[in-house]
Structures are given as structure tokens and as C-alpha cells.
């Protein structure tokens, strides 16, 4: 990168084509003097699917297809090939970059007086596969059959197809030279502060900044949305007298930035961290001016042995209080469980001794079976339920986005998150325990528990939330008048009220995100997790057509489908062979706030920590 900019500055570059990359934002552009360098290039072509900072410096911007509109392939690892097939026709008058290249090639050949066969990108790709993958795999049938088969499965595993028995080598080579660029720990002065920059799971390097779902996705650790901030460890915050939302100036040599402070338990007292990907200027309506651009703090390390590299960590910085405040939009303000029967976490040793080991031994927190005035619900057909494994959940929050996409959950914006009106049907609660310097963390996906004795159902005056005969707690949007009594009486507070007509903020093609199987809700009504009732309906219809019951595994909730750790299992509790029914019977299964006798349909599996000391000491400590 630095070599290229040097050549551009020297006038050695005649034309620059930037394909799906945004160096004018996501690079140490100030350090490199990229804007000046680009001005010296006579022809700058940017191929992009949306406007960005680099496009603003280009002579031509070529609108590329969205990946859902385009053909493509990938070779993620050894012997694995995958195909990308368009899921929809192009919405706008865009053209695949690959088509542009082929057309330019033909035109170029034409200029040289050579005839060229007109190929489009799809044919080119197909030919390429015929020459490479088809040949490599040595399939028996025709290429047509092979191609159609590859499209159907989406993936070709040459290794497996050949029946090779040798272990697959999947590790990627690691550039050890980059480690040498980091400051040596021993050399750090104990009173200095160092900045570490990181990319968030949601926005990554800023390419997702104009995606409102991802902007509003709370950071799994800090639970902050819509902004980046300076993470400061609790000890350092105490030393510098910093509080959450204080704006500080971060100074390194000639560079200065102002960031609000977030006090982060577990962070080393000599390190402050901030996320890249924020503070974009030409991302679009959503991403512009959300947070602060910290890329100017990325350095380029030139060394003789190694290729010049970008260095994100280890810069010495100073902090200065500005006296200003900036209110970060958090979704969780209290970080301890206060010793309540919410989480069960035990160590591996305890688990081995007794898998049913429980943190909460207070008899007032234990469920007792007492006679009830009310008859129990009968579930003659299906009984839907869920089990969530706290040990495997990493808090990545993919389930939240999956749910948002599936269930038309609207985005509310920074100001509404500040007053706690985010609409996520499933959220990731994060609790700390132990010392603030080195806390234990537990993530808990929290969604409607579909209680058997649902407190919300009894209090609705118009019967807008009722229990169905398959164990679902259903919400009748048309009937809801919005008293919010159900929300008050829900111990889990998983009900979401539409304070405004959020759908009105969706303009133009943004309306394509709505799932046609799910109602878009108006203001003034309550909504919540439905266990993806539209998918249940669909699975039941399919099973009925086949004259069968819905089999385990046929039906997946959106959160479950997307969970990379397979921590969420959903299914029919009336089927003793279903995974969820088996998990519910496991000694590890517990229910949140069981003492209230709400009898949730969602069970959680005890978190087992592979650590020596007891993990469940001092849950009551408050860190934030």
C-alpha cells in the first residue's frame, strides 16, 4: 500500500482501478497521503456497490452488482470450492465488475484489430469451472450434471469426492514477521498508556457502517450501539478519575481524537482500545458521522526484513479529559446478576462431581411444587420449546441479526436506544462476576420464554396475548391496544413496545428487507419473539402434505439456524426423541427465575467453565 502510494505520488501510475475496497477510509490515509496521491493518477476508476469515500475521489464510479445479484465462486480452503448463484435479479442498473472486465478485454482486443468472442461473466465462470474444478474432481457424468449438482449443493469438496484418507491441511500460514512490529512487553514503561485498535464483529473495518441492523447490534461485551468509544480499564479509570461517557482526547504525537469513555472490566490498566470502522463521511444516511474515525491512528511500519505492514496496536498515547460528555447508547446498564437465579455457572471439576450442581441454594430462590387453583395447559399435538447452551454461546449476536431479518424487527436509532427502546426480540445479556480487573463473563441469549403460566397473558384486558395449544404465547397484533401491562408483568422484560411507526423510516429499496411472511407492526402495539411461528406454520403445512408430523430437525428458528456454535436448539418437547426434549431432561438444564413458577418453555444449560476456582463467587459485585 505504501509502495503504491509512493508510485502514485511519483506519477508512475496511469490508471487505478479500485475494486470493492475503500482505501480512502479504511487505511492510514492521512499517513499515506492517499488523497494527494490519487489526484496525481490521470484515471481513477472505483468499482463499488455503494457510494464511499474512495468513490468521492474517483473519475468514474462503476456501480457493481450486490453479491446477491451476482455470480461468483470461492475457494475458501484446500480442495473446497463453492459457487455463488444470484438470488435475485439486479434491482438497479448495475453491472458485474467481471462483465466490465470482459467487455474491456473485448474492446481492447478490438482496438488491436483482434476479434474476440463475446463472453459474459456467467459463461466465463462456467468455462473456468469446466477447465479447473470439473477436471480436478474427475467426475464421471457430463459437465452439465456436475455444474447443476454444484449449484444445488453450493459446495464441492474435491477431497471427499476423491475419497482421500490423508488428513486435510486447513491451517493458514501465519505471518510471524508482524509480531516483531508490536512493542515488547518488557520494554513498556509501567506508567505509559498504549492504544490498541480493533475491528468489531458488526462493522468490521467500516464496510458495514451503512447497515442499520449492524449499527444497532450491541457490542457483545460493552453492549454499546451506534458509536465507538475508548475502552478504559477500571483501575485506569479510577486513577484518571474517568467515568462512563466522559469525552477524552487521545493524543499520539501529532494526532488527536476525541472519544467517549467506556469503562471496560477486564481491560489491562496500561491499554486503552477503540474500534475502527466508525466515523465514516460518505457511507450513506445510516453510517455517516456515527462514531469517530480512528484509522488515522493506524501506523505503517517500514522495516527492512518485512513487507511494510499496518500496525493497529502498541502506540503510546496520552489521555486528556475534555470536560465534555457524550451519552453512549447502551443496551445493558447493570452488569451483575445480583446473585439472582438467572445464570448457573460451575467449574469443570464441579460438573464432573455433579452435573446438576447449582449456584443458588437459597430456599427462597428454589421452586417448590405447590397446589394450583388453575388447571394445567394440555398440549396434545406439538409442544414447542427451546434449549440454549450457555457453555457454547460465545455472545457473537448473530442470532439477533437473524431474528431481525426473519421477523421484520425494526431499527430504532441511537436516540431511542439511549432511552432503552430497542426492539430486538432476542438479545444477549452479558453478566460479569469476580473482580473487575479480571472478571468472568457469561452470555445469556434472552428471548420470550413462552411460559406455561405466562404472567403477560392474565393481565391483558383485551386478550391480545394468549396461550395456544402448542405452548406458544402468541401476540395478536390486531387486537393489541397497547396498555403495556403485559410488559410490566413479564419478569424477563422481553416484550417490545412500538413507541413509533418505525417502518416509516424505511425508504425505497430498504423496504425489500421485510419478510413477506411476517406482519410489519404499527405503532402503539406490543410485539415479541414468536418462536418463528411462520416457520412452524410452514413446517406443519409441509408435514401435513406429506401426511406426517413435523420431524425433529425439519424446523429451525431463525436464531437457531444462524447460531455458529449450535447453542440454540428448538423443537417439539412432546417428541421424546427430539434434541430439545433430551436437552431439557439433562441435569444441566435450568430455567431462568424458576422460583416464579412461570414455567418457561426455554431452558438453559449450565455454563461449565474450565477453570480451577469456583466460578460462581461474587456474582453480586457491581462493576459498571
Amino acid at each position, binding site marked *: 500500500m505504501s509502495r503504491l502510494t509512493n508510485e502514485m505520488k511519483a506519477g508512475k501510475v496511469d490508471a487505478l482501478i479500485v475494486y470493492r475496497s475503500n482505501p480512502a477510509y479504511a487505511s492510514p490515509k492521512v499517513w499515506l497521503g492517499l488523497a494527494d496521491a490519487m489526484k496525481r493518477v490521470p484515471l481513477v476508476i472505483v468499482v463499488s456497490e455503494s457510494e464511499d469515500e474512495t468513490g468521492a475521489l474517483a473519475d468514474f464510479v462503476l456501480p457493481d452488482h450486490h453479491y446477491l445479484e451476482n455470480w461468483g465462486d470461492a475457494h475458501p480452503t484446500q480442495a473446497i470450492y463453492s459457487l455463488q448463484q444470484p438470488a435475485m435479479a439486479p434491482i438497479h442498473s448495475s453491472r458485474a465488475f467481471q462483465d466490465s472486465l470482459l467487455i474491456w478485454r473485448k474492446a481492447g482486443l478490438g482496438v488491436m484489430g483482434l476479434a474476440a468472442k463475446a463472453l459474459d461473466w456467467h459463461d466465463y465462470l462456467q468455462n473456468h469451472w469446466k477447465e479447473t474444478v470439473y477436471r480436478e474432481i474427475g467426475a464421471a457424468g457430463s459437465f452439465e450434471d456436475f455444474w447443476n449438482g454444484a449449484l444445488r449443493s453450493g459446495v464441492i469438496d474435491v477431497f471427499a469426492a476423491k475419497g482421500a484418507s490423508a488428513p486435510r491441511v486447513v491451517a493458514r500460514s501465519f505471518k510471524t514477521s508482524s509480531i516483531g512490529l508490536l512493542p515488547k512487553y518488557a520494554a513498556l514503561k509501567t506508567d505509559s498508556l498504549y492504544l490498541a485498535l480493533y475491528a468489531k464483529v458488526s462493522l468490521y473495518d467500516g464496510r458495514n457502517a451503512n447497515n442499520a441492523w449492524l449499527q444497532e447490534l450491541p457490542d457483545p461485551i460493552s453492549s454499546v450501539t451506534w458509536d465507538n468509544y475508548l475502552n478504559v480499564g477500571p483501575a485506569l479509570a479510577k486513577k484518571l478519575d474517568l467515568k462512563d461517557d466522559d469525552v477524552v482526547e487521545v493524543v499520539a504525537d501529532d494526532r488527536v481524537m476525541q472519544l467517549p469513555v467506556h469503562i471496560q472490566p477486564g481491560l489491562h490498566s496500561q491499554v486503552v482500545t477503540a474500534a475502527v470502522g466508525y466515523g465514516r463521511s460518505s457511507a450513506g444516511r445510516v453510517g455517516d458521522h456515527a462514531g469517530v474515525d480512528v484509522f488515522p491512528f493506524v501506523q505503517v511500519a517500514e522495516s527492512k526484513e518485512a513487507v511494510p505492514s499496518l500496525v493497529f496496536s502498541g502506540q503510546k498515547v496520552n489521555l486528556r479529559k475534555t470536560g465534555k460528555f457524550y451519552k453512549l447508547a447502551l443496551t445493558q446498564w447493570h452488569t451483575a446478576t445480583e446473585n439472582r437465579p438467572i445464570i448457573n455457572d460451575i467449574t469443570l471439576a464441579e460438573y464432573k462431581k455433579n452435573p446438576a450442581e447449582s449456584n443458588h441454594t437459597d430456599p427462597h430462590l428454589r421452586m417448590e411444587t405447590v397446589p394450583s387453583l388453575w388447571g394445567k395447559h394440555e398440549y396434545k399435538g406439538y409442544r414447542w420449546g427451546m434449549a440454549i447452551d450457555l457453555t457454547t454461546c460465545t455472545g457473537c449476536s448473530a442470532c439477533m441479526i437473524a431474528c431481525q431479518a426473519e421477523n421484520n424487527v425494526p431499527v430504532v436509532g441511537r436516540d431511542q436506544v439511549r432511552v432503552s427502546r430497542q426492539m430486538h426480540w432476542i438479545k444477549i445479556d452479558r453478566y460479569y462476576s469476580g473482580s473487575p480487573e479480571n472478571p468472568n463473563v457469561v452470555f445469556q441469549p434472552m428471548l420470550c420464554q413462552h411460559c406455561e403460566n405466562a404472567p403477560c397473558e392474565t393481565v391483558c384486558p383485551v386478550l391480545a396475548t394468549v396461550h395456544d395449544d402448542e405452548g406458544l404465547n402468541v401476540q395478536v397484533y390486531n387486537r393489541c391496544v397497547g396498555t403495556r401491562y403485559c410488559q410490566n408483568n413479564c419478569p424477563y422484560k422481553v416484550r417490545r413496545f412500538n413507541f413509533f411507526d418505525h417502518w416509516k423510516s424505511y425508504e425505497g429499496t430498504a423496504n425489500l428487507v421485510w419478510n413477506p411472511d411476517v406482519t410489519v407492526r404499527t405503532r*402503539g402495539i406490543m410485539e415479541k419473539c414468536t418462536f418463528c411461528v411462520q416457520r412452524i406454520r410452514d413446517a406443519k403445512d409441509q408435514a401435513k402434505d406429506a401426511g406426517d408430523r413435523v420431524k425433529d430437525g425439519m424446523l429451525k428458528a431463525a436464531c437457531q439456524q444462524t447460531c455458529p456454535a449450535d447453542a440454540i436448539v428448538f423443537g417439539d418437547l412432546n417428541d421424546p426423541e427430539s434434541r430439545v426434549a433430551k436437552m431439557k431432561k439433562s441435569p444441566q438444564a435450568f430455567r431462568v427465575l424458576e422460583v416464579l413458577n412461570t414455567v418457561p418453555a426455554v431452558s438453559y444449560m449450565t455454563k461449565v467453565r474450565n477453570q480451577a476456582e469456583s466460578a460462581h463467587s461474587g456474582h453480586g459485585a457491581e462493576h459498571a
Partner: protein
Amino acid sequence: MSTSTEVTTFHPEVLVTGGKTYVDVNNDVSAPLERFPAKAWWVCFIIAVMTFGLGATLAGIMFVNGLGVLGLNQPNGWGIFIVNFVFWVGIGHAGTLISAVLFLFRQKWRTAINRSAEAMTIFAVMTALLFPVIHTGRPWYAAIWLLPYPNQRHLWVNFRSPLLWDVFAVGTYFTISLTFWFVGLIPDLATVRDRAKNSLRKTIYTVLSLGWRGSNKNWSHYESTYMILAGLSTPLVLSVHSVVSFDFATSNLPGWHTTIFPPYFVAGAIFSGFAMVVTLLVIAREVFKLKDYITLNHLEKMNKIIMATGMIVGYAYSCEFFIAWYSGSPFERFAFINRAFGPYWWAYWIMVSCNVFIPQVFWFRKARRSIPIMFVVSLFVNIGMWFERFVIVVTSLHRDFLPSNWKYYVPTWFDWGITLGSFGWFFIWFLLFCRVLPVIAMAEVKGVMNVDEGDGSHGPAPLKEVPAHG
């Protein structure tokens, strides 16, 4: 005035001072109805209309945009509007208590204040009823769908929901109170009719007085009806606020889920209702020159009730803490410790100071009989009772079961503006009432006067001046 005070002191039976005759009663009470409103009234009325206008405008903006303009959030599903609802229903308690319960107990001193207390009840309930409707997300449906009307869609209401019980409880209370009040007005309306000189005025009061002639038959029907309605109203005094308290008591939220709520709410309602009556009467007797009818004796009795109910409320506060501890439930214990020492500690201590500490000044007779002191105390009691509902609604919701959901609640200008507007609405009605209806039950006051004895300075009232219907 000084001599009459002496008289009252030594002869508690004398409920009307100043040596009034029956004609004086008619003249004094009807006077505000028969003259053009004074400047002070217009000033008050215009302020009330403007305040209501502010609230109505803000509510209009809220209807167009959504409830998001308020301070409500995810754990705090209810806020200032429900606080106002409970507050105004509470205010509405004193009227029926004074009219019905004191009537059945033959407390004759009630005659001086029952009319205005009942009016206050009706207007307070009218104000209270605004809030449950406008606090819903879709008030245009809520106003209808909470009523169990037969329909072809087979939609029905949920009889397990305390909100539905509220509809019945408050609806019944309003209907009975209005009927009781109107029946009590009939003889007085006839007096106003008989005095009317303007023909339109005469027509209106003729219609309103339902053909009252003051005959024996009239009186006998009237008195039995009045007695029956008093009997019907009495259980309602207890039921309305008990049912309102069920909104909280039957939920599972720590701080709401409490069996003490029904009596505690009723005592609190009487407490705040009496305080509001004192506030209004102290002004009214001054403005309308009714000091001989609404005497210091009456006010002192009210103050005694305020102090007694205030102590019941104080007992309930401490009892709640004891039960929270005694229950052993960590959720309950936390809810109450959080109430007094959590983020809303200021609201809790405003409540305790205004409701428990300040009314203790009424142990002193001087304080009970001092207009400035009782006026200030009555205002404090109403502030305290408003905060009591705030403490119950908000401090319980803002930190409930899962700490991940905890969030502070901050009302917005819409919350405050619409609250202010509700006071405007209440005072518009009260000010109109003062101009068009007799603020003191003339017929009943005449019944407790001892005109024949007089106090010596005026002599017996001439018999011919006693109106046939009085």
C-alpha cells in the same frame, strides 16, 4: 367574626355561624350564580383553559407521532400517566366518603362541604379517566375494546385482567357519584329556578330541577332515594381504590405484589381526597364569602381525618418494609431497599416527608385551626400522595427481576405538560361548577340550622321568608 368564633367553640352544635337566616342561606349561596363573574374568576378560568390547551396540544402531537414522545422505556412500561390516574382517582375519594359515609353516620357537619366535595370527586374521576385511555398505544381502540360489548367477531374481554376490573370499578363509581350528586342537587336547583329572573336561565334550571315542587311527597321520595344512593355509594368508596390497587397487587412485580395494597390505597385515597377538599375549600370560602357556612370547625374535623389517614398510610409504608424482610424473598427485599436508598431515593423521601412527617403538625390545635398552615399542609399532602404513586409505579418497574433490564425512567416535557393539562381540565370544570351550581347544599344546611334560637343579634327569622321547598 371574633364573637362568632367564640360561639362555635363552646357550642359545637352550631354548624352555621354569623346568625344566618334561611333567606341569608339562599342569598349567600346563590349570589355567585346570579352575578357576572368577577375579574378573579376570569383570570383563573383563562389560566385553566390555557393550561388545558397546552396539555391538549401536547396530547395531540402524541396521538399523531406515538407514545415515544413520553419518557417510557423498556422496563418502565408505565409512568407519569398511570401515576396521574391513580392520583386523580384517589382525589375523587373524599367526595363520596363525605357525602355517603358521613351521611349514613349522621355527621351533620358534612352539609357545608358535601356539595363541593362531590363536585370535586366527579371532576377528579373525569380527569382520572383521561389517563388510562391516552396512555395506551392505540387509544382509538382502547376506548371501545375494553368494554364487553357483543360483536360478530366473537371478541371478548379478559375478565382476569385487573385493567378490566378498573373499567367496571371506576365506571360504576363515576355513574353512582354523578347520580348521587345530581339527586342531591335537585332541591337546590329548584331554589335557583325560583329565584331566576332571566327566562333562559329559568328554563334551564326548570329542566334540571325535574319539576321539584317541595311537596311532602317530593321530600319523602327524595330522602329515601338519597339514603339508598348513599348506601350504594358506601361500598364503592372501598371498592374503587381497592380495585385500582389490584392493578399492582395482582401482578408479580416486587413492590407491586403486595396484599396490603387495597386498604393502603383506600386510606391513601381518603387522605389525599380530604387534602384536596381542604385546599379547594380554603380558597372557595374566601372567594365566595362562605366563611359562616364552611367554618373552622369543619376544617378542623377534616384536618383530623387527614392526620389519621396519614398515619395509616405511614403504617402501611413501614409494614411493607417489614413484610419485605419477613418474606425472605431477595427480590422483595431488594425492591424496598432500592425504593428508599436506590436511584429514586429522593422520590421516596419526598413521599415520606409530605405524607407522614408534615401532617403531624395537626397534633396541635392551633395548627389544625390555622388557615395558612392547613393550606400548606394540604398542598404538601397532595404532592406527597402524587409521589407515593410515583414511587409505587416507577421504583418497582425500573429495577425488576433481571438486572440486565434495569433502566432509569425520566419523564419528558410531554409527560409534564399533559399532567399540567389535566389540572387545567379539572379546574375548568370546578370553576364552571362554582358559577352555575350552588356550591353549598342549601337545603341540607337549612336542615342543620337552628333559626328559632338564633344567636340573639338577628332575632328569629320571619316565617314567611322560608321558601316552600326549603
